Structure formats: structure tokens, C-alpha cells
């Protein structure tokens, strides 16, 4: 366990350096223990791949106090019981420059065809490692090693909601339009964040996700059904 200062309002508690489902489970367990302890001055915690970020109020606590408490909690926290683990099959369109502008670049980098990249993407059963960056936005992994392309040097702006993007063997689905340093390889019509739903955030850490390839026509049909509220997103869930 390694502690890193994120200024005077947050403390990064890092539990490993390499991303794996095991380390991620430790992260989720430690985060649950910190939340349950209701430490004075802790505002909220954010679990990610290999670390927990503890946001705190420097008027009420400080780093030394938190370090002691978290070390103690880390010794006590075991594996948490996995919450309800759900499986999702999400429709994704991988066709054309509009839906998948970077697909051919990723294929070129990997030394395979675009169709082979798509095959890898739909064959992989990925887990949700974390929710982050933007509302309800899932970080999924892992893809086959050959697709582990680095991020772009400089983020590009205006990537649309629903964009399926990849870098470093991970996949993210954009829940809102945002800049990205990742490569855009597809798009889903299913909103991952929707304030009109009782639970606005669709996915949760630990969920399993697979992609189902759809043509542009089916993408539009699903998008239209979502727009007039006749699409039940839960229908993609299987147990």
C-alpha cells in the first residue's frame, strides 16, 4: 500500500501498480471499509483500478490523521461479498467514419484488419473496473493484448455520447460528449447515464459486459425506441 498526496484535499491510496481483477477487488473492499468507518473530515471516496482517492476537508482533518486510520482499516478489510453481479449485452455499431473513426488506425497499429479488431471487441467478456471521468461512465477490461494501444498524445474534443473508445487494453463507453485521449472504435445507442431513470447510472463496478454488433439501421431503431421511451434497457441484462 502506497500513499500519494493529491494536494491538501485528497489522498491517493494505491494498492498496486498493475491492473487486475484481484487488485481491483481489494480497492473495492478498502473503499467500503473507509466509507463504513465514517472518518471525521472525509467527504467522499472514489475507487479506481488500483487505488482509492479519499477526498477530505483540510479544515477538519489532515493527511497524517487519515494515514493512521486507513492503515488500520486496510489491516481489517477483507474481500467484500460481491454485490449482485450482472451481465450486460450492449448493442454497438462499429461501421464507418462517423461511428468508428479510429477503428482502422487501431487495426493498423495492431497489425490486423478492422474486422479482426471488431471480433476481438465482441468476443471479449469485460468486467467493469470502475465508474469515472464523467457521469456513469464505465471503464471495462480486459481486451486481448494485441489491442493494447497507448492513449493519443493529445486529447481531441467533441467525442459523442455512446462512443466506445479503447486504449491500453481497456474500453470506455462515453456517457456524455467529452474530449478523449482514447481511440474511438464504435458507438452504442444505450445511454449509460440518464437522469429520467430511477437509477441514472446503468452499470456498476463488478458487472460483466459484452458487445453485440449492430448495423447502422438497428442502431437508429434502438436510438428511436429510447427517444420515445419504448426501449427497456434492462432487456439487455441476462443473469
Amino acid at each position, binding site marked *: 500500500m502506497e500513499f*500519494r*498526496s*493529491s*494536494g*491538501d*484535499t*485528497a489522498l*491517493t491510496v*494505491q494498492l498496486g*501498480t*498493475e*491492473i487486475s481483477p484481484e487488485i481491483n477487488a481489494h480497492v473495492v473492499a478498502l*473503499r467500503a471499509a473507509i466509507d463504513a468507518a465514517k472518518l471525521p473530515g472525509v*467527504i*467522499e*471516496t*472514489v*475507487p*479506481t*483500478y*488500483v*487505488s*482509492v*482517492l479519499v*477526498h477530505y476537508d*483540510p*479544515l477538519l482533518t*489532515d*493527511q497524517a490523521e487519515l494515514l493512521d486510520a486507513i492503515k488500520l482499516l486496510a489491516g481489517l478489510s477483507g474481500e467484500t461479498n460481491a454485490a449482485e453481479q450482472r451481465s450486460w449485452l450492449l448493442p454497438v455499431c462499429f461501421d464507418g467514419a462517423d461511428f468508428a473513426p479510429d477503428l482502422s488506425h487501431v487495426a493498423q497499429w495492431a497489425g490486423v484488419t478492422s474486422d479482426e479488431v471488431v471480433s476481438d471487441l465482441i468476443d471479449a467478456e469485460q468486467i467493469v473496473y*470502475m*465508474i*469515472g*471521468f*464523467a*457521469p*456513469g*461512465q464505465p*471503464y471495462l477490461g480486459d481486451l486481448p493484448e494485441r489491442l493494447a494501444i*497507448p*492513449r*493519443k*498524445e*493529445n*486529447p481531441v474534443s467533441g467525442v459523442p455520447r455512446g462512443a466506445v473508445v479503447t*486504449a*491500453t487494453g481497456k474500453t470506455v463507453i462515453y*456517457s*456524455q*460528449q*467529452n474530449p478523449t*485521449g482514447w481511440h474511438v472504435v464504435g458507438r452504442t445507442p444505450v445511454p449509460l*447515464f440518464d*437522469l429520467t431513470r430511477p437509477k*441514472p*447510472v446503468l452499470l456498476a463496478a463488478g458487472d460483466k459486459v459484452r458487445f453485440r454488433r449492430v448495423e447502422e439501421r438497428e442502431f437508429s431503431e434502438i436510438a428511436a425506441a429510447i427517444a420515445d421511451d419504448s426501449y427497456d434497457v434492462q432487456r439487455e441484462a441476462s443473469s
Partner: protein
Amino acid sequence: MTASICFESSGPMTTVQSLGRFGTQALGIPVAGALDPIALRLANALVGNTEDEAGLELRFMGPRIRIQGEPVRVALVGTSSALEVLEPDPFLVPSGQSVTLQPGQVFRVGLMRDTSCCVLAVAGGFELPAIFGSLSTYVPGGFGGLSGRLIVDGDEIAVAGRAKNDRGDLRLEGEYDSSMDSPIRVVLGPQDDYFTADAVETFLSSPYVISPESNRMGLRLAGVRLEHAKGYNIPSDGIATGAIQVPGTGLPIVLMADRQTTGGYPKIATVISADLPRLGRALPGQEIHFSAVKVDEAVAIRRQQEAAVQDLIKGLKSVSIDASQLQHLLMSENLISGAVWG
């Protein structure tokens, strides 16, 4: 009839902001909130609101607002520009002072020259739905504030009745330190080890200029490029407001109020919380310098700043001269310095 404010003209980037949306970052929900939270707290204190009530954040140029229905108390904080009452009788109210306006009165806040943002508080707050417990507008996500967007011409917001006290109109005695003359202080890390020693040295000794591409999410900086020692990909981790991420270009980006909750670029340093309000006010083209402090020093500086803010709030004074005198005084002042705001 209830009170409301009507935007005859919205200003370019006016939003409803509180102190932020906390407790849902693990769902990927950004904090948002005022870029200058001290200005919001002081403005709220001036109008008798609780400190965390939502107000209007004005950026670069303010709105033109008509008061409707009932009298409304407002206060402008965070700029040297004045609140200009235009109709029916024009007069100026300096920033840092509340004023109670009658239905039919129209005021505006013009171009700001000393800051990119300031706050207009409205006594009682706004009759708007809280999203995840907060009124802060998060424009990229389309929620919070008024329909999750920038205020536009013709918008109207009903004023709520949440003011906690009514001590009459008040003014601030003294100012809070918001100058950009001294360096912006940072705590190194969380990933300063992802940079060469030269890069850390360069970062702390070189001037950086705030790029016009900056927004509420982040300040993009132009200047000397910083060299990564271990690449520019980390396993995405949680982000604190003020974190300075350095993507592959080597040019730093300071993450501000609308920042993402997590990110995968290494963060060389994090701006200390006491310096975030003045950095939030920085204008594009402004040159800034960074200097490093230890985290304990950062906490001490923040606690000192908080004591100063509390002193300002405790030291609010009644506006002693009566309104007609004030109006006359300010109008005569206006005749002398009319070019400044005319």
C-alpha cells in the same frame, strides 16, 4: 406574486453554481460548483443566505436582469466592476455590498477586466430542482442549475425563500486576497515520479500562460513542455480539484471545478486549496508561476485563509447612509468616472 429575476440579456457564460456537488464522484458525477467559492460565500453572507446557497456565476461579462414580483436583495462579489442599476433611475452599487431592488428595477454587470468570474448572490436562493443534492450547473452533463445549461436571454428564475436572516443591506469591510502577483502554490504529486527531475524543476521555475482554450473543466497552459520519465499513461485514478495533469504534449492542464472525477494522465502536482479561488479567477493570457509547498504547509495556509474569510463575514457592516443619499453619491461619482462603465 412571488419574486423572480428575468434575464433581459444573459451574459456569455452565466450559470447557477453552489459550492459543488459532493458524495457522487464514485458514480462519475463531477463536483462542479463556483470557480471562486470564497466570492460565493461572501456574496451569500451579504444577502443573508447560508454560505452554500447557489448563486449566479458570471464569467467575462455579466447579465442584464429585471426584478419581478417582489423586492429582491442581491450582492455582487469578486470583481472591481460595480452592479449598475439602469432603470428606472440609474445608480451604481459597488461590488461587496448588498442592495435591495424593487420590482421593475433593471440592473446589469458589465465587462469584467480584473477577473474571469464573479458571483451574484440572490437572497433566498433559487426555486430550482436539486440534482444529486446540489443546484450546481454541470453543463457538459446537462444537469443542475437551470435545465443543466448556460443561462440564455429571456430566462426567468423564481426566487426561493431560504434566506436565513435579514439584517438589512450589508457591505464587506476589506477585501480577500485574490491577486495573481504571487506564485500559485502546489503540492507535488500524486505522480511527480512520472517526470524527469529536470521536468519538475522546469515546472516550478518557468512561466506558464493560461490558454484561451481553457474552460471551467480545466486551464490549459502554454509554456515549456515537460518531459515524462515513465510515459504518459497511468492506471486511471481519482482526481482532486487543482490536479495538474500532463498529457503526451508535455503541456500542463490544471483541472478546475467541472473536472472529470478520474483520469489517466500523470499529475505532476496539485494546486493547494487556498489558491484555487484566485486561480479560478485567472484570465486567458495571464502568466502564472508555480511554487511547491509541503502538504502540511498547504493545510496551514488554508486554515489561515479560512480564518480570514470568517473574519470578513463577521465584520460585515450595515450600509449606513440611506438609499437616496447613496444614489446621489454614486451618481455624482458616475459623472466623474462614467467612461469606465458607460
